[in-house]
């Protein structure tokens, strides 16, 4: 029997769910692998009481989100986090880099409660254990399919761990650091074939900080290349502002 899959969105722009619909060539193949019980973006139904795989997009920003995650963890045998928001806190976590309450007030007005139990934006892993990860902003649909099929087959999560420079070299890109421009590739989790650098933009770290990153050494590299060593830390804020709580 095909596993029952629920796709649940928290705080995000739903871009990763859109990416799944973007894979026209393979969408039917992928849908054929599962019994899609609930897809927040593409259906008007309600989250069912039972399903096997929870696919979570978005950061945790309210108590409702946290509750939904606990329920999903209890219900599903497998939890897959997709996208930067879910995995590192992503862009939503940027809100926590200064006085969060003050920022909230600027956007929504003082004393206005638009969400019950709002909290500092945080990754899914700060609330529940995550079994599989599809990092990136947005996700690469092909990677989503690979991870989903690994989950369905019961293979272990195989999220790449190493920094990005190696794959960037294979694309024969001229290094941004050598041109005196800040790039996060040297500390960012690989697996995206260095698409941004290949297209002429430095890496912004959307796949999260590599668990093998040598951050003190990377700061020294920045200094050596004539950049401010702390620029590295500032650049992290875009996608990795909640780096202290990423599990």
């Amino acid at each position: 029997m095909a596993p029952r899959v629920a796709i649940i969105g928290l705080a995000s722009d739903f871009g990763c769910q859109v990416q799944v619909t973007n894979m026209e060539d393979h969408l039917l193949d992928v849908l054929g692998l599962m019994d899609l019980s609930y897809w927040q973006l593409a259906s008007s139904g309600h989250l069912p009481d039972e399903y096997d795989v929870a696919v979570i997009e978005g950061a945790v920003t309210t108590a409702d989100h946290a509750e939904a995650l606990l329920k999903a963890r209890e219900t599903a045998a497998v939890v897959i986090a997709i996208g930067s928001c879910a995995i590192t806190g992503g862009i939503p976590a940027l809100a926590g880099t200064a006085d969060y309450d003050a920022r909230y007030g600027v956007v929504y007005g003082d004393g206005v409660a638009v969400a019950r139990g709002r909290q500092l934006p945080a990754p899914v892993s700060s609330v529940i254990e995550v079994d599989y990860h599809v990092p990136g902003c947005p996700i690469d649909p092909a990677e989503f399919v690979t991870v989903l099929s690994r989950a369905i087959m019961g293979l272990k999560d195989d999220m790449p761990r190493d920094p990005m420079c190696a794959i960037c070299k294979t694309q024969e890109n001229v290094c941004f650091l050598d041109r005196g421009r800040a790039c996060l590739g040297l500390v960012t989790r690989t697996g995206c074939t260095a698409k941004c650098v290949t297209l002429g933009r430095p890496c912004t770290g959307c796949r999260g900080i590599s668990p093998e990153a040598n951050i003190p050494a990377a700061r020294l590299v920045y200094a050596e290349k004539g950049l401010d060593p702390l620029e590295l830390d500032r650049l992290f804020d875009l996608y990795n502002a909640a780096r202290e709580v990423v599990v």
Partner: protein
Amino acid sequence: MFFRVIDKERLPDLVTGLSTEYEVIAPVEKDGRFVYAPVVDPGDVRLDYDTTLLPPKKWFFPAEETLMRFRVADNEVLDDEVFAAPRVLFGLHPCDINALLLMDNVFTGRYADPYYMRRREQTLLIGVSCSPSDTCFCNVWDTNEVHWGFDVFLTDMGDRYFASCRTVKGAEILDRFVENRTVTDEDTREFQRVVHDFKDAFDRSVDTTQLPVLLDAKFDSPIWDEFGEKCLSCGACSMVCPTCYCFDVHDRLEPDQKSGVRVRTWDSCQFKEFAAVAHGQNFRDTRASRVKYRYYHKQWGYLSKFERVLCVGCGRCARACPAGINPVNVIEALQTGEVR
């Protein structure tokens, strides 16, 4: 060996002629640096290049290649053919030809690799003389000279090239595609002068006396920890190295899960998982140990097997390493006990 002389202004004819029967790969400019890429217009070929971002190994052992396709239902192999078009690699420097000879020891030896072999057999190599760059140190290993492994080697003599044909095929393509003449005594004298000047120009000094002994004596040196602190574990050094041959193999299923591909990708000994084995054991758990074993393999392990170090001094790692770790400063640090 046959020798011919080609007027410099006639050289584009060779590229044009070869293009009628081969895919011609040559150094071309990319964002202010150089890459080996297919060329059609001989005007794109840049024989004044210093070095390329990736070495020529990618044309024999690509960064990613499909080894076979398979069907899931019955585990049947559907396709493991190696297709290799006739190709000419044009404009290789001596270091890169020497590097291919070192790769051959691994890929065409006891466990010959059919994918590498097939491409190697289908590819002609045309070398060209070079001049020292800021980062190369080929003279340290004597790899700025190449005696075999090429079909034709072109030595730049100002207005003409002295063409050494190492293979019959090499002499044939010259005779077929470019106007050339036999060598005169004056050409030979000029050749002798040019190659001596060339060797004199390489003056990078690194003391490699009894290097394996030095490595053994310094096995527990704290300098490895210092390099470990600098290393980013990014693997850039291995990717750009013309003699790094380690790879990983993965099976990937197609989205319909009915068939899949077995893929080979370049790997790096600087990645933590490189030496991870079952049960979570890892023989190279620390950055320091990974940097150390990179050098032990290159300057000791390979040497003990093939009587050459696994380095040709091309200097690509020196350019690519964000942290500035390279064989020259590692060897110097071992000698002085100080990381510069």
